C-alpha cells in the first residue's frame, strides 16, 4: 500500500497526471491507420472515415483485428506504430 504513493523525482514542471502523447498538428501528409476490430458493419463505417480523412490530406492505411473478442496481437500494434502517425480504432456494431 505504501508503494502507492511516490515522491516526484523531477523538477515538477509538468502536471502530475500522465500526459497524452503529442497530438498531430495537421492531418495533411500524415499517415492515419484505421483499425477495424472486426465487428459487423465496421467496414462501411471506416470507409466513410477514410473518405473524409483523405479530403483533409491524410494517407490511409487499413488494418483489422482477427477477432473483436481479443486485444490486438502485438505484431499488429507494432506494425501500426511503425507505419502510422496516428490510428483510429473503429469500435462499432
Amino acid at each position: 500500500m505504501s508503494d502507492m504513493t511516490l515522491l516526484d523525482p523531477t523538477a515538477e514542471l509538468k502536471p502530475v497526471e500522465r500526459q497524452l502523447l503529442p497530438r498531430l498538428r495537421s492531418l495533411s501528409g500524415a499517415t492515419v491507420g484505421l483499425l477495424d476490430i472486426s465487428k459487423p458493419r465496421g467496414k462501411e463505417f471506416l470507409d466513410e472515415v477514410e473518405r473524409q480523412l483523405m479530403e483533409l490530406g491524410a494517407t490511409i492505411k487499413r488494418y483489422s483485428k482477427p477477432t473483436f473478442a481479443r486485444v490486438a496481437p502485438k505484431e499488429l500494434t507494432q506494425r501500426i506504430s511503425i507505419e502510422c502517425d496516428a490510428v483510429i480504432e473503429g469500435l462499432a456494431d
Partner: protein
Amino acid sequence: MNQSVEPSYALVVKKDCPTCALIEPVIAELIKAMAGALTVYVQDDPSFPATAANPIDDRSLEFSYKNNIEFVPTLINLTADSEDRIYGWDKQQWREFTGLPTLGEGLVDFKPGCGSKSQDPGMDEVLALRFDSGILQARRVELAESEDVVEACYERGWTDGLPVVPPTPIRVMRMLAGSDRSPSEIIGNVPPDYRPCSIEKIATNAVMAGAKPEYFPAIIAAAEAALLDKFCMHGLLCTTYFSSPVVIINGPAPRQIGMNSGVNALGQGNRANATIGRSLQLLIRNVGGGVPGGIDRATMGNPGKYTYCFAEDESDADWPTLAMDRGFDRDQSVVSLFAGDGLTPILDQQSRTAASLAKSMAASLRGVAHVKLFGLADAILIVCPEHRRLLKDSGWSKADLKAALFDELMTPGHEIVRGASDMAEGMPEKFKDKLLNKFRDDGLHIVSTGGTAGMFSAIIGGWVASGERGSQLVSKRFSTSGDENE
C-alpha cells in the same frame, strides 16, 4: 508566571519489557502517591500495566517519538525547568527522583530497561514521516490500485531505460538519514533546465538508482561537483560527442561503503559503483530535464551514461592517488568528476621496463579523439596494478611516468596538420611549425584500479571541449562521519 506548579510525571512502558513487568507494583505506588500527576504511556498493549487505571495507548508511538524515548521504562519529570528523566530500574535513583523513600521495597535494586519501540530498526524514519509532515516537500504522486508501481515510473519518464526502485516517502526518508544535510537545502540549479535541486530530490533519485543510505554523502558530493562551473555540465549534456560524467572516488569512503577497486572495477556487479554513478545520471535526467533526444543530442552516447563510477586502488602507499594529485590528503574522501567516454584498452604484456611501457601508453594515448587532434580532449590514463608494479620495480614514480608521457607526446605540428599522412582531419595549418603536445597542461590524469592479474591498462578519453572553454576535472571532498565538508 506562577512558579508553584504541581509536579507532573510521565512514565513510558511496554508490556514486552521484563523490567516494566517487574516494576508493576512500583507503578501502583506511584499512582497512589502522585494521583493525577502521573500519566502512564504504554507502547504495545493498553491492558498493561494492570496497576494503572487509565494508561494512555501509545501504540502509534507519537508520545514516544516526540519525547525522544530511547528506553523503557522511562520516567520523566515534566515540571523540571530542563526536562529530567530516568530509565531502567535503579531503586535508589527512582526514590531520589520521586521523593518517595520507600519506593519499590522488596524489588531488586537494579535491572536495566529495554529499547523503546520507537527505536526499533527503521522506525525512526517511519515515525518522522508520520509525525513531522513538513520534512518531505516534493509533490506526492498517488498511483491507482491497478497500476504496477515499476511500470508507473516508466510511464512517467523517470527512468534511464532500466527499472528504478519506486521512490516511496519511507525509502526517501531512509536515504536522507544517510547524511545530516537538511532535506530542504538547495545545492544549486541543475542544467539544462536549471531547476533548484534540494537534498530531498537527490535522495529521491538516489533511491530510484538503487543506492543505500550509506552511499548518500558520496552521491551528494557528486551532484555538487557536477554543478561546479568548471565542470560545464550543461554543455556536456548537450554535446553531440560521446562524453558524460565519469565518477572516481578516493579516500576512506570507498572502502567503508564497499566499492570495487579490484577485479572488474569498471564493470558490473558492485552496488555502490553502479548506483552512485546512476544516481547522478538520474538526477540530471529528472531534476535537470536532460533527456536523450531532447537537450541531450549525443550522436551515439556511450554505455557509461547509465552509470560510470569506480574507486581507485589505494593499496600501494607509494602511489599518489588522483585526489592527492588534486591537492587532497590520502585520508580525505573525495569524489572527482571527469567528462569522459568509453574505455580504450592498452595491452602491453611485453614491456619489462618502465621506459618501454611509457612509450606503449603514449602511443595509445595519441588515439584519443583522433591521432592528429592535439590539445582538444583531456584523458584519464588508468594504470592497472601489474603495470603499476612494473613502474615501481623500475624505480619510477607516478611523476616520472607523467613526465615521460609528456615527452613522448610532443609532436612537430607538420606531422599532424590537416592533410598530413593523407588524412584531411588534423590540426589547423597555423600549427605547422609549432611543437605540440597531445594534452593541454593539466589535461592528462592518472589513476590506478583493477584486478591484480592482467597487463591491461586503459584510457578514458575526454570531451573534445576540454579545458577552460569546456569541462575540467573537478573534485569535491565529502565526509561520511558527519564532520564539516570543505
